[in-house]
């Protein structure tokens, strides 16, 4: 089998270290063939093996009474009652989206949807977390705008055609992402407890069946590309990006769910990264079996493909399944109905080997466990987290707070993202009770009285200042979003986007962030059921901000959603959690400092998790009891931005504060654990807060058309609602089409 083609150059080109190659030699007891080397390189890539993070990911809490399936499968599964379960996960497509934004983002959506329906769940919601360089950057703005437009239309193209609503997400612009945008896609599906399928090749002698699109040369080595830094040569990797076909995926969804109902399928897995390779060896490894395939049987789109190319192809919209021997025809009938290829390409064996044959010749013969479970694990050295931001910054010296507020509202991060989310079908399947722009997205589960709420959040700025505290703040924020919508947070998925883990100061960011995630998820009782790690997010040696993105799901009774906006004049406005007492350093990571000073310094806001939890319990109680008329949490931009957002339904506020804080801090600090509610019975809200040991203050009343904020009789902000809403509404389109280059 060995052909002596394996030179040190070939090993390096496969991004395998000398030590890793030695490990391959000892696992095989011989020199690998080129096909085998390719298979190892993909399975042992960072993308597939999590080799740099696995030792730390073990620190995450993964269990609770709700968790039916934790990490390690295609997606996590949570029980939501009534015999119903949800599967959800997040995945990144950062590198492909930079090289080819439209297809990169589109196939990112396709990949995560397959992770969900391969488990038997029908996808009912998608959210996206996307990050780009600044749209108004003189040097890179044009490219950043092109990437944003491409990514958004790619997501729309795939999700809209497939028929899954894109119900929320976040979009951030930061210089740090200009050479390395982030595209993280979250998907959630629903099924009954008895409809769950796993990626296991059980039953020796059972047929291994290939279904879906034909195999082509696209995407070869995508997983290894996703595990490397960007260089000037990256552009040459464009053919590594796959092309998505959402209609094919829709057919695959319906056919798979229908075939599962026959009872003839024993295991199924999508062909994601490294397609045929990962699906065969992982299904075999999980079941402790072997898988033998004959590549001549694989449906092919191109002629003359080598075994190496077929095993490494990342052609989209393909699945591998194992059926009960003798019942294959039941599966074939369903796939034929949907007009899809379904072909037996192999058989489950008892020898634990992945054996790849082509026209009778064995091209690879590797123990499945060696590929799936014996990947190297590194406890990479870590030092202190990389930090480039200074401890202190310029003084806060505002001359016009109303102008500052308008500048914040029309900044890329805080402005309305309507231009983006109107391109997504956020209603298809008629379950969307709260969609984009809401506190948290809410989809109902038809046939039950339960709805699922979900929130997706990240904050690279906080994490650049302190990855541990920043990550905890993100978890708190997601849980607060859900609680403010009336939902009880129950489980977490996460996408860890970082730079090169071989640099100790980057590895330190990763370790700190994972430990912060573990601590917060433990405290807020939202175990982690899965996720994704994207490393080497660096271009020409410059890493992105450490950017963990957290998706948390929760449940609530199916009802009309609590509004975020002030519903009518004359209501008392109550701030739960208090005005806060931040130190100056805590301003350095805020949107105020980003917009007004264009800088980053200091520390993230302080989080008292016990206090946060009490505030969340209080608001959830109030929202569920309908003791409030609206609820909105304070996030980026602080109190003033939250008040403005609440007024965009046309009803403003007359706010009277009593604080000794500098005005910039009072209005714009981003201290967590604070929520604005309105009510016509303030005494009920105040007593509920008192019962939960939460500070609550009536800070004003709602009124028509104007937002006025006073502190001790000094007017800080005074504006017509329309004058705040106008810039907020138009900013993104303005940035896209008429950027003012500075």
């Amino acid at each position: 089998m060995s052909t002596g083609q394996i030179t040190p150059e070939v090993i390096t080109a496969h991004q395998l270290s000398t030590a890793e190659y030695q490990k391959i030699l000892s696992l095989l007891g011989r020199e690998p063939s080129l096909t085998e080397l390719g298979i190892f390189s993909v399975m042992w890539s960072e993308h597939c093996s999590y080799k740099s993070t696995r030792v730390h990911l073990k620190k995450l809490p993964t269990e609770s009474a709700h968790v039916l399936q934790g990490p390690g499968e295609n997606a996590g599964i949570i029980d939501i009652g009534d015999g119903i379960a949800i599967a959800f996960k997040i995945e990144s497509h950062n590198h492909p989206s930079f090289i080819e934004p439209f297809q990169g983002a589109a196939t990112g959506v396709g990949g995560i949807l397959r992770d969900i329906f391969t488990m038997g769940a029908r996808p009912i919601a998608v959210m996206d977390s996307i990050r780009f360089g600044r749209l108004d950057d003189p040097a890179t703005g044009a490219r950043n705008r092109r990437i944003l437009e491409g990514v958004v239309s790619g997501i729309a193209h795939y999700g809209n055609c497939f028929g899954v609503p894109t119900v929320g997400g976040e979009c951030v612009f930061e210089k740090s992402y200009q050479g390395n945008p982030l595209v993280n896609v979250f998907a959630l599906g629903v099924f009954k407890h008895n409809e769950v399928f796993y990626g296991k090749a059980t039953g020796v002698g059972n047929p291994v069946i290939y279904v879906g699109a034909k195999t082509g040369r696209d995407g070869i080595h995508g997983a290894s590309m996703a595990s490397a830094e960007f260089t000037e040569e990256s552009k040459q990797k464009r053919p590594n990006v796959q092309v998505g076909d959402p209609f094919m995926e829709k057919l695959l969804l319906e056919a798979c769910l229908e075939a599962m109902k026959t009872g003839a399928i024993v295991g199924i897995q999508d062909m994601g990264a490294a397609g045929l390779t990962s699906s065969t060896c992982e299904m075999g490894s999980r079941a402790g079996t072997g898988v033998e395939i004959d590549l001549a049987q694989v449906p092919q789109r191109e002629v003359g493909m080598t075994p190496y190319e077929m095993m490494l192809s990342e052609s989209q919209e393909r699945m591998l399944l194992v059926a009960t021997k003798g019942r294959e025809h039941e599966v074939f009938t369903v796939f034929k109905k949907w007009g899809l290829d379904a072909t037996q390409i192999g058989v489950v064996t008892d020898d634990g080997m992945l054996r790849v044959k082509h026209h009778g010749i064995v091209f690879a013969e590797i123990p499945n466990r060696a590929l799936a479970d014996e990947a190297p694990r590194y406890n990479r050295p870590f030092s202190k987290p990389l930090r480039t931001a200074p401890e202190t910054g310029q003084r806060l010296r505002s001359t016009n707070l109303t102008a500052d507020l308008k500048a914040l509202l029309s900044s890329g991060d805080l402005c309305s993202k309507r231009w983006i989310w109107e391109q997504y079908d956020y209603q298809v399947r008629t379950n969307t009770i709260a969609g984009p722009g809401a506190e948290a997205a809410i989809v109902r589960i038809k046939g039950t009285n339960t709805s699922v709420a979900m929130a997706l959040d990240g904050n690279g700025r906080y994490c650049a200042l302190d990855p541990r505290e920043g990550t905890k703040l993100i978890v708190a924020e997601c849980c607060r979003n859900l609680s403010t919508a009336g939902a009880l947070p129950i489980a977490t998925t996460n996408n860890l986007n970082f730079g090169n883990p071989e640099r100790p100061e980057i590895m330190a960011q990763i370790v700190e962030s994972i430990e912060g995630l573990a601590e917060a998820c433990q405290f807020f009782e939202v175990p982690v059921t899965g996720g994704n790690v994207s490393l080497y997010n660096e271009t020409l040696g410059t890493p992105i901000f450490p950017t963990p993105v957290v998706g948390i799901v929760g449940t609530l009774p199916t009802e009309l959603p609590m509004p975020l906006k002030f519903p009518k004049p004359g209501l008392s406005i109550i701030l739960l959690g208090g005005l806060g007492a931040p130190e100056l350093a805590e301003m350095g990571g805020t949107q105020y400092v980003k917009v007004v000073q264009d800088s980053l310094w200091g520390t993230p806001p302080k989080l008292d998790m016990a206090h946060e939890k009490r505030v969340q319990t209080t608001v959830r109680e109030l929202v569920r009891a309908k003791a409030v008329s609206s609820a909105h949490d304070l996030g980026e931009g602080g109190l003033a931005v939250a008040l403005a957002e609440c007024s965009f339904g046309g009803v403003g506020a007359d706010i009277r504060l009593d604080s000794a804080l500098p005005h910039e801090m009072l209005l714009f600090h981003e201290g967590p654990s604070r929520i604005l509610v309105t009510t016509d019975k303030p005494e009920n809200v105040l007593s509920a807060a008192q019962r939960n040991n939460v500070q609550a203050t009536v800070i004003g009343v709602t009124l028509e058309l104007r937002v006025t904020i006073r502190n001790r009789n000094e007017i800080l902000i005074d504006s017509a609602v329309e004058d705040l809403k106008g810039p907020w509404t138009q900013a993104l389109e303005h940035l896209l089409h008429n950027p003012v280059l500075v």
Partner: protein
Amino acid sequence: MKIGIVVFPGSNCDHDAWYAVSENLHQQAELVWHDSSSLGNLDAVILPGGFAYGDYLRCGAIAKFSPVMSAVKRFAAEGGLVLGVCNGFQVLTECGLLPGALVRNANLKFACRPVELEVATGNSPFTHEAKKGQRVTIPIAHGEGCYIADERVLDQLEADDRIALRYIDNPNGSMRNIAAVLSEQRNVMGLMPHPERVADPLMGGTDGLIILQSLVHAGAAASRS
């Protein structure tokens, strides 16, 4: 009242229409697979939204040749009620059951949002429960919803009172703000907005019921006569 909902492989609003008919209107709903050459015993047919056969070529261009559309054409020729929503509207124009065509939105982007509409005629099985001039809010979700036809056809549609709904604030560049048109016999209607998405108060509105209930009552009356 039994309403058939045609399912092309790429239909994705078929479940939504099914749910609105059975759960919100409490009528019998039946899914009809695209390769059926007969519709069976139905009182009305809905062609739902989606991407019939992927629509990479041109929306509805392949659906036109499907066995089920031959059956739908026969059903319509016999006076059966046919409602095409979004992709269903595109399929109806491709098949020649309705005049005109639907092309890419003027701004070339997919748009999902509630739009305000004016009921332009109450004289149809799909709008008889509304008054002419009444305003309703129903969401759109399409990339190719710009209605075009030549001037002669548009004049004829107006002369025949066959424009059923018009956009108040045109979202896609449709000629003469047309959102829905009727066939000559008035038993076939296509519209770009999605009435099935606002048939349940939980979805933020119920204006879609005006159209769906008109259809149900017209269908019930027809099957009695």
